[in-house]
């Protein structure tokens, strides 16, 4: 079955065709104002106590990874992506930092589908969708990436 054969179902999903159609194409772009106090609150509620982690005025303060991960909590799939019909699960988050992310600046998040794969187990087949948001500063430098993993479990 291909995507042109009518409404797709998880059982007949062609992973390779999905990859060829959707991987590495930017489908969302959004600006974020990094609020220093909110970033510091995230660090404090994560158990941090050191000034460089919870005081946004500290010269070494950087935006915590968990806050960067939260920026990718919006739309994870292209608007024309097929309805998968399964039960979506938040499979996890990953953050990779290339440069320190300072607060009180506007970042631009550019999101694309980074990977699509499936696994079969005793509970049936699951499709894994990894969307990657690239976070750029006003000068266009890539500061970090934030991955969101969505798992679609085949209905039994």
């Amino acid at each position: 079955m291909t995507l042109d054969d009518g409404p797709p179902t998880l059982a007949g999903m062609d992973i390779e065709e999905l990859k060829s159609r959707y991987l590495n194409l930017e489908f969302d772009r959004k600006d974020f104002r990094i609020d220093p106090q909110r970033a510091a609150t995230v660090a404090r509620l994560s158990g941090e106590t050191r000034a460089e982690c919870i005081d946004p005025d500290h010269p070494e303060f950087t935006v915590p990874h968990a806050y960067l991960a939260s920026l990718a909590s919006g739309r994870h799939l292209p608007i024309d992506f097929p309805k998968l019909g399964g039960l979506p699960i938040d499979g996890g988050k990953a953050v990779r930092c290339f440069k320190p992310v300072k607060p009180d600046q506007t970042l631009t998040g550019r999101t694309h589908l980074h990977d699509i794969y499936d696994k079969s187990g005793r509970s049936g087949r699951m499709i894994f969708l990894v969307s990657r948001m690239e976070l750029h500063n006003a000068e266009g430098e890539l500061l970090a990436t934030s991955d969101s993993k969505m798992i679609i479990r085949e209905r039994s």
Partner: protein
Amino acid sequence: MSISSVDQVEFGTELGPWKPDTSIECTSAFAEAVGWGRAARFSDHEAARAEGHAGAMVPGIMGMGFLTTLIRTWAPEAIIEEIDTVFRAPMIADEAIEVSAVVTDIDEDERLVELDLTIRNDAAETRLFGTARLRFS
């Protein structure tokens, strides 16, 4: 004990376990801080159960936050270049969890250290696991 350079790191070193504050006041405030508002699934046990959950949950990314705190307390001067977490099962607010990590690889030439990460509940069930890569200066 905290460390400051890669040559102080030993393969197999264990970080933690550490029991962070998972009170519903904290999970609720965390959700609000990241812009999710007072979502019931993080701030109200009864409302979360009505939505089909076992109770109000600890946000998965809060688990990531606990892990980065554990790492940065151990190695304050290292940079966490990458952290990758898998949300295996929900963590429930007001229930104790244990956050731990173990050193799995050391590259002294590149000053890199890799860690395996785990969060377990009181029943020793893994709720979240992952990996992290640190770079020392």
